[in-house]
């Protein structure tokens, strides 16, 4: 009897299929490209205030007050000298550009600014822009026309731009248009 029970147990093992599992592994690789996304201001408007041309208004140490006094009182000649007159102004545009960049280990990102159209016109009256400089947002040294920084990944790096404007040929007030600054961003 005991022998018969043992045989039944063995048959049960052979006829009830056990759960089966097979597994295998494989290596998967994916290449991500270098990428740079450049954000830019498509239009920048700036207004030249009289204080930007303060040299032109300089009469002594405090130009506005003394000029007003002189005009009100017709108190005499205003002593304007050539050295006091300034026909140039410096414009600083914050967050002029933004860059997201990712690249291989050891790579860098460079943003360069240049003037692609130097003349802003209002009829025959012109303003000339020149000497563009750039820096990372908020740094403010503006030492060169380009700035180099590590890849940002998908974070946004903002940058400021500064340039000079020469208004010595400006003969009319009003809107002067047509100037353009080129922004070039590369990974190297």
């Amino acid at each position, binding site marked *: 009897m005991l022998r018969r029970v043992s045989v039944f147990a063995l048959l049960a093992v052979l006829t009830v299929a056990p759960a089966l599992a097979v597994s295998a592994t494989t290596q998967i690789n994916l290449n991500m490209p270098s990428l740079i996304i450049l954000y830019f201001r498509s239009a920048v408007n700036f207004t030249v205030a009289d204080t930007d041309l303060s040299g032109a208004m300089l009469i002594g140490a405090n130009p506005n007050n003394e000029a007003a006094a002189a005009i009100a009182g017709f108190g005499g000649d205003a002593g304007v000298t050539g050295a006091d007159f300034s026909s140039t102004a410096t414009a600083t545009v914050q967050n002029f550009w933004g860059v997201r960049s990712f690249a291989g*280990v050891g790579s860098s990102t460079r943003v360069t600014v240049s003037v692609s159209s130097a003349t802003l016109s209002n009829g025959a009256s012109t303003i000339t822009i020149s000497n563009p400089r750039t820096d990372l947002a908020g740094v403010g040294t503006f030492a060169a026309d380009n700035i180099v920084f590590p890849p940002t990944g*998908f974070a946004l790096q903002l940058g400021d731009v500064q340039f000079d404007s020469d208004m010595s040929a400006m003969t009319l007030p009003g809107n002067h248009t047509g100037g353009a600054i080129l922004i070039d961003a590369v990974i190297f």
Partner: protein
Amino acid sequence: MTGRLNSQWLLFLCLVTGPGLLVAQRPTQVGPKIRLTVRSNIQLEPITASELMGGAAPTVPFDGQDPGLTFQPLTREVLDLWSVRIPPSLDNAPLLVSYQLIANNGVEGALSHLGSPGSMVLCIVNALPPVDIGGPPGPRILQGGIRLEIDPVQVDQAGSYGGTLVVEVTRP
């Protein structure tokens, strides 16, 4: 008496050593039953910059504020990832196929940069319906694949990303 001892020994052998046979390397086989073959060294089609940008140009006007960045869904399919040869005796048995993706840096559900392990591509593995590519008079052969949903949000390096995919076929 002798017959009883042999029976007990065989029962013990089946219960204890059975699970030890379940995991094997590619290609692998469990007894005479199911044979699993998996493609080796899968190189996915590279992600392109245009894909990441959703086809938009990489130069974008803005107002000086961060406009944010929304990625388009990125997918890659591996259609012929694995095949299973099923003997006629198991032809109607249900099979469960499961996947586990482990980045080279050990993180599950991702691929990691080969030179900068902290940079990862998150991936969700979705199974594609298997295709029957064999049949009588030969054994039934099923072939299957995956669709990877790729999220590059944690990527900060270009280059090659890798990981190991484990494919497991189970007959419950």
